[in-house]
């Protein structure tokens, strides 16, 4: 991990610590919790799309698996929550392998449609066979580690954002390593990657697995926070929302996922004052940012900072 990213992580940790201290409002912290949950799934999609050059419109499927598996295991069988969250990640990982294998021959639009179908299949399965069917089920235990229960919004905020920091560190580490370089190489030239001895198939499967595991973690954290889940939270609409987050934040940088997730989570809240026109304004803002922010906010900001720094360095 380079110095700029280490510094950015430290800044993020400082912000995480200070937000609940400065803002006493439970409303703000609740939005913070959802931003963090969305950031987790967005980071996974950034790796999949921005680094490995794959595409997914089915992240809601893994998000749903994460929520349902850990919710069901804790609710019906009374198993410890962290164990069930881990179990859900393993189930999602297997689902990712099943999705990845037929998808390996597909690219671009075709891959998008295949992953979209996967998300829909999961959603239909949850409607048909999930506990409670279309109306879902409640009384899901809140997150707890041994005796410590994360039952306040503030403690849950720290839990979720603690996970975001760990996931970020883990992701930065592997992106700047043998496997991460291989993913970017794959994105650059599949032909040269094969000639250099990269096991293209295994790499593609693994990157799907990683993004699924992150989405699953996000889903589990969601379920244990709201303590009630139904299939309507895990639809194509959510997959597209996550796609929106990473595109607006910038898919070529993990920070793009984090920034995009926060913006897209906060935006509807800020637009409350427009009352019935909020959806219209929301759509307008998204369309404009897609038109004028093609590469995403974070890469744009980094470029601006470099331009500002440039003359300073030259003067030395």
């Amino acid at each position, binding site marked *: 991990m380079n110095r700029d990213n280490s510094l950015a992580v430290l800044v993020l940790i400082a912000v995480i610590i200070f937000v609940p201290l400065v803002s006493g409002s439970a409303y703000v912290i609740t939005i913070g919790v959802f931003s963090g949950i969305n950031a987790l799934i967005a980071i996974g999609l950034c790796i999949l799309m921005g680094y490995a050059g794959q595409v997914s419109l089915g992240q809601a499927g893994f998000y749903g698996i994460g929520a349902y598996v850990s919710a069901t295991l804790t609710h019906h069988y009374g198993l410890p929550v962290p164990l069930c969250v881990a179990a859900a990640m393993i189930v999602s990982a297997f689902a990712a392998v099943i999705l990845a294998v037929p998808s390996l021959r597909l690219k671009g639009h075709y891959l998008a449609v295949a992953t979209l179908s996967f998300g829909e299949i999961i959603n239909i399965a949850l409607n048909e066979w999930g506990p409670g069917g279309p109306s879902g089920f409640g009384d899901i235990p809140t997150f707890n580690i041994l005796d410590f229960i994360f039952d306040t919004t503030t403690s849950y905020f720290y839990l979720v954002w603690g996970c975001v920091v760990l996931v970020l560190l*883990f992701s930065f580490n592997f992106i700047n*390593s043998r*496997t991460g370089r291989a993913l970017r190489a794959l994105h650059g*030239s599949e032909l*040269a990657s*094969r000639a250099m*001895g990269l096991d293209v198939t295994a790499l593609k499967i*693994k990157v799907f697995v990683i993004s699924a595991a992150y989405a699953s973690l996000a889903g589990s954290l969601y379920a244990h926070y709201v303590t009630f889940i139904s299939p309507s939270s895990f639809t194509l609409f959510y997959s597209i929302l996550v796609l929106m987050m990473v595109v607006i934040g910038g898919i070529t940088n993990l920070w793009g996922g984090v920034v995009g997730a926060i913006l897209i989570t906060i935006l509807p809240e800020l637009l409350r004052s427009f009352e019935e026109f909020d959806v219209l304004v929301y759509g307008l803002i998204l369309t404009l940012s897609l038109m004028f922010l093609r590469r995403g906010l974070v890469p744009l900001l980094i470029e601006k900072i470099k331009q500002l720094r440039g003359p300073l360095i030259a003067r030395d």
Partner: protein
Amino acid sequence: MLAINTIGKSFGGLIALNNVSFRVDGGSISALIGPNGAGKTTLLNIISGIFPPDIGKISFSGTTISDLPATKIARAGISRTFQQVELFGDMTVLENVMVGRYSRTRSGFISSGLRLPFVRKEERETRDRSLGILDYIGLRSRKDELASNLPLGEQRILEIGRALATEPGLLLLDEPAAGLNIRETRSLGEMIVRLRNEKKITILLVEHDMDLVMRISDRIAVLNFGEVIADGTPLEVQKNQAVISAYLGTEE
């Protein structure tokens, strides 16, 4: 070292290669020449496993490789460059070479994510070796530039550097001098000879620059319409009547 036996390949109705056989001796610089469309690149693609031959067999250091996928052939010690440069354009010069170390290292997703001690050590070694390669090919000062920003001559050299990182026993060069000026071509020729002499790497090159080919090759095979029409030393090939008529045409 490399034995190509009766290789045949056709694309639809087009016969690209027909009954092609020749050998590349260990420690030699061999060249594959022939008019455009003779099947030279097709043969390199088959050797490196980009696609399999229809019939025939290729063995490398005694093992059959013609039924292996590209990844395994690379790991067996055959590396290559491309006629149309295939660098990882969005990655730096150093990172391109570091990707070449992939098949010789083993850190996985999880061990890398957790930055385990052996991963740190391996990462340091990868970096040091890659910098060493950049020193060797003279691109060290360019290490942090994006590969796509280099001029073509340096891109071709970088492709060789990336291939060297895989520690090949055999290096396949597909028109390495294409697009280079005379001075660049000369230093490329010197580098190829150095690779053979200092690094003991066997070279098989496809090339149109006859001056370069005749100067550095120990042995030349000539392909025309998918068939080997001559195979011998540069002198023998130059005198070969079939080769002369393939290049210049025959008087009726």
